[in-house]
């Protein structure tokens, strides 16, 4: 895994310029620490070796990366346009979080499923979290960086520090692939503070341990109408 990046500050400089640049590792312009004031990052990975007593046929590693940032909209009203900060902060987070995922999961080609999430501190609106993960400034870039095509599934919540959030994932190029519907539980012990937002990106290198519930191609036709015609029901 990569050594820690250094330098933690923000700035007034436009984030888009920095997001487009390829920063030197560990430099002050490392994405995630220029436009967003990142207090901490947390990487959590799971490798399942056995499930229900047997090793998976296709072993997968799941990872979720969290970045804790100051909520840039504290004290603003519900009519406030969120776009100016989104355009600066979200691309930098998308780059920083996906870089960590790619590093933790052994390269972008190894990643098969993805998801995203936000935990908003109690002084903010859910809309603030949504602003950082639901616009193209995060979602399109995360999809591009992870070489996906699917819409990215998500979870969001407002809560106190230590809130646990289950982050859903599905296949990055074929969202309906049932074997890849999976989740990872994410939690930062001391975040978000009331004035913070935790932004998360998750990914997995494979399916569930023993995926065996078919797929759209193998399903029989099941409908409410058919069910009502079935005398045994």
């Amino acid at each position, binding site marked *: 895994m990569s050594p*820690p*990046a250094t*330098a933690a*500050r923000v700035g007034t400089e436009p984030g888009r310029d920095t997001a487009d640049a390829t920063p030197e590792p560990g430099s002050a312009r490392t994405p995630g620490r220029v436009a967003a004031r990142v207090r901490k990052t947390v990487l959590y990975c799971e490798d399942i070796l056995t499930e229900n007593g047997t090793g998976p046929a296709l072993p997968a590693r799941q990872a979720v990366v969290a970045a804790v940032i100051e909520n840039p909209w504290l004290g603003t009203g519900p009519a406030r346009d969120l776009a100016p900060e989104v355009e600066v902060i979200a691309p930098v987070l998308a780059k920083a979080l996906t870089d960590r995922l790619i590093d933790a999961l052994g390269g972008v080609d190894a990643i098969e499923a993805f998801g995203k999430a936000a935990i908003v501190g109690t002084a903010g609106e859910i809309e603030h979290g949504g602003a950082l993960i639901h616009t193209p400034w995060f979602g399109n870039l995360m999809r591009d960086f992870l070489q996906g095509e699917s819409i990215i599934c998500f979870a969001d919540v407002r809560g106190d520090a230590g809130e646990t959030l289950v982050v859903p994932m599905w296949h990055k190029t074929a969202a309906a692939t049932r074997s890849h519907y999976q989740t990872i539980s994410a939690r930062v012990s001391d975040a978000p503070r009331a004035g913070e937002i935790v932004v998360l990106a998750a990914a997995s290198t494979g399916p569930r341990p023993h995926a065996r519930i078919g797929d759209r191609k193998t399903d029989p036709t099941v409908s409410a109408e058919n069910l009502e015609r079935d005398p045994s029901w």
Partner: protein
Amino acid sequence: MVVRKIVTLVEEIHLEGGRPVAPAARIAVVAAVVRNPWAGQGFVDDLGPGIDANASDLGELLAPQVLDALGAPAEAFGKAAIVGLDGEIEHGSALIHTLKFGDHFRKAAGATTLLPAVEKRGPAGVVFDIPLKHITDATLRSHHQTVEVRIADAPHPDELVIALAAAAQGRPQQRLAPLSTEQ
């Protein structure tokens, strides 16, 4: 030894007390979720055979992984044994309070002190804090710290979570007077 899963946690602190931490303070934890080797056996008097069969393997499994996850020389370390609800605390203690377990970490990290530990029994998803101290001087206050861990679905009642933690530095913004100034 049946390992269900391995969990890796890496925390990097970039700001503390409102001030930058450079380089970022880094702590890593690697935990193995394993079947309690004494599960279903009632009260086992002699834990020795189970210790011999498992403790060294666990230390050997976890030590290189936690140092790899840290990605820097370890300056502080700690360990944990979290026991599922059907087990005894003694089962977790048995596997981590033996040189057979800890020596792998000490050797790999160049450490000389004993590992501080947490032993706790709880349900799946229990939150636990792993204490860490300096790897060669357990009195060094700057390196007294903890890291908090939670695994959503572990330990099951018949499982143990065995973990190692490593930090690349002391607390961010550490600034306490050394112990010697009070002696």
